[in-house]
């Protein structure tokens, strides 16, 4: 056990800090041109897709360097590393693991250069937690698949150029996990229609996406026909490990402390209320645990493992932390919470994060069944 960073790792941290000192745009400037400039500077450093292998266009950074990079970026409240979030977090890694050479060459450079935006098509109107029961079908027709069905809750589909999609290519037989195929589909394809769905905050972030005789070249299949479940298991673990990064929680905690310092509760400074103090301390402890869990799992990966069921641990931790944290924030705001503002907005959006990527019950099932070996229900 050694949590000290090596001199090389510390030097890398310094490099990130100097980069931030030079390139970090002001907090109130997130204009598209500014972000484009930011992403170009990052791309020059190869810090977008930093841990991907260099031969795939990544930075060849170690997992530890990647951890340091993300941590420093988050502390500085920097804009994201690259704009194609899903492309970077799970589509790219899935391509690297399962893609053919020409597929990697076609897709990876655009993801790294933020020229594409990917969205993800798993859920369907009748299919949520039980993903393997999906019904969107693709029929083979020569060198193409013909895709029919509809996906729902597709985040960013209204901006995306590509969708990472799961469909059924043969009926459920012996195993319901067999016969599912992963396709990479251009959102410009004829026959796709995207209809907005407003989230409870009134924002348009996700959609229902319809596929009507959409023709997809067979060459856009990722992995073997019928073997898409394998691809998606890895992708889901990557999605959860992204969702469960503690850095964002750390920022929220700092903001919550600030709020508590200037708030009053029952006519007294809120920090004189022991329940407020202990609640904040509990969040801080839970966030530390999350961060350290992440570091332990990183060590497993350094020793050769891939992200897997253990990512459900921090996904559940995040669920335990974020909603109560926002509840405390709204409690501190009191009646003022009715007036709107960024806290109020976040207090509502976190109800979505806990569901996206798989609900808490599903994470509990994963742990109980795959880690503890309890029977399936």
């Amino acid at each position, binding site marked *: *056990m*050694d*949590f*000290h*960073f*090596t001199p090389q*790792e510390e030097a890398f941290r310094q490099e990130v800090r100097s980069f931030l000192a030079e390139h970090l745009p002001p907090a109130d400037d997130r204009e598209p041109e500014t972000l484009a400039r930011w992403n170009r500077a990052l791309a020059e450093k190869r810090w977008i897709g930093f841990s991907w292998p260099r031969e795939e266009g990544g930075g060849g950074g170690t997992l*530890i360097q990647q*951890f340091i990079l993300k941590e420093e970026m988050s502390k500085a409240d920097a804009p994201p590393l690259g704009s194609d979030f899903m492309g970077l977090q799970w589509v790219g890694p899935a391509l690297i693991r399962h893609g053919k050479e020409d597929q990697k060459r076609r897709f990876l450079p655009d993801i790294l250069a933020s020229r594409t935006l990917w969205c993800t098509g798993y859920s369907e109107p009748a299919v949520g937690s039980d993903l393997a029961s999906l019904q969107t079908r693709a029929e083979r027709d020569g060198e193409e698949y013909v895709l029919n069905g509809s996906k729902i809750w597709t985040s960013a589909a209204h901006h995306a150029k590509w969708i990472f999609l799961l469909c059924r290519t043969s009926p459920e037989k012996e195993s319901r996990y067999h016969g599912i195929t992963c396709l990479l589909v251009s959102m410009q394809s004829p026959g796709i229609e995207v209809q907005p769905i407003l989230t409870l905050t009134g924002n348009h972030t996700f959609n229902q996406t319809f596929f009507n005789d959409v023709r997809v070249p067979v060459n856009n299949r990722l992995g073997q026909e019928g073997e898409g479940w394998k691809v998606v298991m890895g992708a889901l673990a990557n999605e959860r490990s992204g969702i469960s990064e503690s850095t964002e929680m750390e920022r929220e905690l700092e903001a919550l*402390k600030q709020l*508590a*310092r200037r708030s009053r509760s029952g006519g007294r400074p809120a*920090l004189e209320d*022991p329940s407020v*103090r*202990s609640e*904040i*301390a*509990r969040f*801080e*402890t*839970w966030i*530390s*645990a*999350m961060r*350290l*869990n992440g*570091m*332990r799992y*990183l*060590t*497993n990966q*350094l*020793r050769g493992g891939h992200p897997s069921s*253990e990512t459900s*641990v921090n996904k*559940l*931790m995040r669920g335990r932390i974020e909603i109560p944290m926002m509840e405390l924030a709204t409690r501190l705001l009191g009646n003022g919470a009715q007036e709107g503002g960024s806290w109020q907005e976040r207090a509502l959006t976190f109800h979505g994060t806990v569901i996206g990527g798989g609900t808490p*019950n599903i*994470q*509990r*099932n994963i*742990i*109980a*069944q795959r*880690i*503890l*070996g*309890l*029977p*399936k*229900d």
Partner: protein
Amino acid sequence: MNFGMTEEQDLLRSEVRKFLDEQSPMEEVRGAADTPEGFSRALWKQLSELGWVGLVTPEEYGGAGLGWDDLVVLLEETGRTLFPSPLLSCVMAGAAILDAGSEEQRRAWLPALADGSCIGTVAVLEEGDSLLPRDLRLRGEPDGDAVVLHGEKHFVAEAGEADLFVVAFRSGDADEALSLAVVEAHAEGVRSETGRSLDPTKRSGTLHLDGVRVGPDAILGSLGEAGPALALLLDRGAIATSAEMLGAAEGLHAMTVQYAKDRTQFGSPIGRYQGVKHPLAEGYVDLECMKSLLYYAAWALEASPEEVPLAASQAKAFASEAFSQMGITGIQLHGAIGYTQDSDVHLYLRRSKWARPAFGDEAYHYDRVATLGGI
């Protein structure tokens, strides 16, 4: 950066586990807990000979010279089997003497503590049951270059069996004007007795000090300046206790998971029902967090001292809440069998109730986390 156990640590774990599984199964634990001393002298001797009692005592004082990041592995295993022994107390007394004592004092006491021939413990708490420096009232009355102690220490682990007590007392009015001294059980005016304990595998009691004279050779460091040493000692206690809690929680959790696989109702193992499997999954999340927080705190003791107070408090606060919940869940998921004397589940529940307040409960530690976190 590397957050994994070393091969040596894995080896230590498997050796300790093998030893305890073979030598101290639950019947043995129950038997030992039933004796007047509360532990088996024979096993204690073996444990000492294996070098585990003096695991973190430096080699020049007769120990194995390993670190606290290794010690937590040992304590996790003794916790897992609820092994009754004065190990934790001896480690604490040794640490106090090593941290705060002079070279002579270390030579005087550490070898006997490391080889198990002397049972040591620490005596800090008083009737008010508070760890805050200002609540330590026992005063050392100066008498030449010695001090005289008049009063009582409560909740002293192994009070009845200890040969040596590291006693905390006050040497001035400022909150932090504290001192530490070694008081031997046979010294004049010293009396101790074991009290009743909810957890039969842990003994504690009261130390009576009736005009006990403590000479300069037994005072650790300078009078009135042991505040920082005592704070470190309490952090060590919180970390060591968290390690035993983690082990016990793992033992209880494994036992409950096994029961959920074995017990059948409504035609299938009860572990299939979410009302059973989900609390077990949450328990797993708790165990993972306990581990991470504990290992970090133990590492900090060896390598990053300024992080110890926060890390120790986070580890102990989390463990206190999580293990208590696991005790409650453990009984419930066992059904009526869990409510019997014969089942081992209640021994774990009892342990959780012993461990929660030991070296500070979650209220104490969360308050400290808040203060250290700037609020």
